């Protein structure tokens, strides 16, 4: 496990460039979030701190909408867990690639694990990339976009008003489609993709909000595994 693997500044820059479309749209979403947090009554410092250390937009949005003074800490923590539980799968799936890194580098990279930089890193790994700093660099770019956007939104309000103007809300799903095409393995991807999507749509209708990504990811991965086992 101590075999040295590349972890370079150039790799981090490549990681940041790879997630650029997602980081830019994350900045726009961050602005909307920062403006909303200000309206709800969180201070500038609280908003900036939350985006920097929670760094999970899909969990922060519902949290801020449900915020009370004082906040209901246990429900907030539970909802945050539900929405972010998909990261457990991300970390498990990328373990073989990151395991040769020192503990410090691995757990620092994991701090910045998000949908976009994880998907981009999985694609890079599949296509033979060896520089593990891709995860860290991509994550830092996402975190700067999200936190910087949150700060700007709290200070100045959202520059875009409604996030659906200019189609900013479509940027993230479009980026996922681009990553899917780039990492396409062929027919083996069809079943997990469709099963994951169907289970997520079903879970969105049947379960409390927040669980659909985890449920879909588990169902899709399981379907893909069982099919191979036949």
């Amino acid at each position, binding site marked *: 496990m101590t075999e040295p693997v590349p972890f370079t500044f150039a790799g981090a820059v490549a990681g940041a460039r790879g997630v650029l479309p997602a980081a830019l749209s994350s900045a726009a979403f961050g602005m909307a979030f920062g403006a909303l947090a200000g309206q709800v009554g969180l201070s500038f410092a609280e908003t900036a701190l939350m985006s920097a250390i929670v*760094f999970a937009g899909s*969990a922060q949005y519902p949290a801020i909408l449900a915020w009370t003074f004082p906040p209901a800490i246990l429900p907030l923590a539970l909802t945050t867990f539900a929405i972010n539980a998909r990261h457990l799968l991300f970390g498990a799936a990328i373990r073989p690639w990151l395991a040769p890194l020192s503990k410090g580098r691995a757990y620092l990279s994991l701090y910045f694990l998000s949908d976009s930089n994880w998907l981009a890193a999985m694609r890079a790994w599949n296509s033979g990339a060896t520089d593990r700093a891709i995860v860290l660099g991509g994550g830092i770019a996402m975190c700067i976009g999200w936190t910087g956007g949150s700060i700007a939104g709290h200070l100045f309000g959202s520059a875009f008003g409604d996030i659906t103007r200019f189609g900013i809300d479509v940027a993230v799903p479009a980026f996922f489609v681009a990553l899917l095409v780039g990492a396409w393995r062929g027919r083996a991807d069809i079943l997990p993709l469709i099963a994951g999507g169907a289970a997520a749509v079903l879970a969105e209708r049947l379960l409390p909000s927040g669980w659909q990504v985890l449920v879909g990811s588990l169902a899709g991965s399981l379907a893909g595994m069982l099919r191979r086992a036949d």
Partner: protein
Amino acid sequence: MRIEFWNLVAILAMAAVTYATRAGGFALMRWLPFSQGAKQFLGNVPSAVIGALLAPALFSGDPAVAAGVGAALAVRLLTRHDLAAVGAAMAVAALVRASL
């Protein structure tokens, strides 16, 4: 730089829970066996995650999202360029919304 005590506690709790999910899967796999089944399962996680993230957006009933995602797919297949695909998706979605 005002930070209320209970707001700080809530933010720290959210951050701790989130980091636990980010580090937890990686940490746990040290102890769980990397069997053939586990490998097959984990190999399918990326496409399953993309399906789970995309489908609720596609079936939200907003035709602009579906049109944008379709444009992204076409442009990515033609140009092999992520940023071009995202730009095309935003333009198509904005156009659809402007014309509705």
